[in-house]
């Protein structure tokens, strides 16, 4: 008997299908997908999970995630997830939503699902721009940020100010955990995974609604290289959206 020459120490999570994605080079979605998939695998949740993707760049997430998923109309993911969770309280339900989906067209659904304390984990991808439609202003776009619909930069008088939906929902009593992380560094990515895990645990323990906001690079629509997009998150985005725990009443020890 010969010895095995190599040992596999890194592989694709079972919760991700073995297919290429349509995401652009440097996009944060691929990283976020992988983190969600790793957490589901490690917590043994894949076969109990029902996911609701957004309308936006992640609209095709059901082609990549290897568990049950249902499409929701733009902004309605948390209403759809509410219907699922109320029928199947023993299943694990997550939404995966972008800034336009969650903080513009779906603001009411977001706030009210959070306020009801729905036992749902919400992964919120904030890239400060509309990706799928080609770079229009997002509710989370920064002041001065140039987009295809704010060509001279976002003007607070005309366009309003960037919305911080994570802090808004944190004041709701039904919300037990909100953390903002950034996907532009290895350290940030590791933190994000811990946060996602905690959010999942809060649902399993029946504590209430939780949301993990992920500051995510969109180099294509920012017209930047992936490296520049990472730096932009550090230099610009974190000023408006500082990473950290926004609310935590879970009582979990890190």
């Amino acid at each position, binding site marked *: 008997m010969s010895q095995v020459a190599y040992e596999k120490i890194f592989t694709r999570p079972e919760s991700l299908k073995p297919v290429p994605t349509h995401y652009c080079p440097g996009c944060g979605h691929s990283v976020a997908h992988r983190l969600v998939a790793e957490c589901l695998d490690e917590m043994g949740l894949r076969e109990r*999970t*029902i996911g609701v993707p957004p309308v936006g760049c992640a609209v095709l997430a*059901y082609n990549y995630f290897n*568990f049950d998923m*249902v499409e929701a109309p733009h902004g*309605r993911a948390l209403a759809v997830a509410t219907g699922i969770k*109320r*029928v199947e309280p023993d299943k694990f339900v997550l939404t995966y939503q972008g800034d336009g989906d969650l903080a513009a067209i779906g603001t009411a659904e977001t706030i009210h699902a959070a306020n009801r304390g729905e036992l749902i984990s919400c992964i919120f991808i904030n890239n400060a721009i509309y990706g799928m439609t080609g770079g229009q202003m997002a509710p989370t776009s920064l002041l001065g940020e140039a987009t295809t619909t704010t060509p001279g930069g976002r003007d607070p008088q005309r366009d309003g100010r960037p919305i911080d939906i994570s802090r808004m929902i944190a004041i709701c009593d039904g919300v037990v955990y909100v953390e903002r992380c950034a996907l532009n560094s290895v350290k940030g990515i590791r933190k994000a995974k811990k946060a996602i895990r905690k959010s999942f645990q809060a649902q399993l323990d029946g504590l209430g609604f939780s949301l993990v906001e992920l500051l995510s690079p969109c180099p294509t629509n920012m017209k930047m290289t992936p490296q520049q997009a990472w730096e932009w998150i550090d230099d610009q985005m974190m000023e408006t959206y500082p990473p950290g725990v926004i609310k935590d009443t879970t009582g979990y020890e890190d």
Partner: protein
Amino acid sequence: MPSEKMLMRGSDTLAEAAVRAGCRYFFGYPITPQNELPEYMSRRLPEVGGTFIQAESELAAINMVLGASAAGARVLTSSSSPGVSLKQEGISYLAGQELPAVIANMMRGGPGLGNIAASAADYFQATRGGAHGDYRTPVLAAAGCQDLAELTFDAFDLADKYRTPVLLLGDGLIGQVMEPVIFPDPIDPADLPPKDYILDGCAGREPRAIYSMLLGQQGELYHHNMKLQEKYQEIAEKEQRWEEYQAEDAEVIVVAYGTASRIAMAAVDQLRADGVKAGLFRPISLYPYPKQALRDLAGDKVKVAVFELSAGQMVEDVMLSVGERSEIYFYGVPGGVIPTPADVEAFLLSVLKGDGSVGRRVVL
């Protein structure tokens, strides 16, 4: 066993019938004149282990319905005209994703906020799809409480059989009035046939996805649409429902549905007592429209008189059904004003005399 005879309000009847038809989930938003329905569900569903949620909007409510349906449940939402307009987006998704659900519309006067009186001006919206895309939904129109007791069962069965949203139409009057009802045999949700498409976790099987977006270059959306059209064709062939009353030897047949048909029936009774050969044709399924049955009653010796609580919507389906076989007349009252049987009698007599004093001749 069918139930004992009970005296119940229309909204309560629909709600109770839904529970007896195996529905354990209701998501809705208040709007007059149908508030008694969600109120009834908020009391009743917890008694049978079900869930009632007052949603933050009609948009949220219909999408909670979508989620519950994807999870395999029989699920109901109800509203009235302006609220049903808001639900249209979700209804299009339900149709595209082939998810069953029952949507009750206790119609009120429109357009806009209109008023809260009984009206039937949502016929086009209900029967022509209502939102974007090539789809239809079966539409069942009740004329009273006993109808609601039975058609609610029918609506849930159609929804599950064809994996489609089904609209159940009443109006502000039907929702508020109390009448004796006998409910069909109750259904235990556990006895309903299993559904092979629902999302309940992928243990022991491949993951499932329920979606309506089909971007593929090989004409996926075309093929999906053609599959939907085949389904609508099957529904059109098999699911027409109607009632005829004194129609066999009638010289004038009034075509009316919902509350209008109750008024028309009283008018027919009075005219028959006076020796006038009047009859009633009541479509129960507005989509699919009972075209052939109506066509079979038409002929050059029969005048067809359409009476609606609208400015004229169903009359177009009557024209498509009857064609030039009979003269067609229309009398409609929009805006929540309810005519009396005497008004409809006058319409039918005017049609027979051809004096044009009430209503108008419709020309193809």
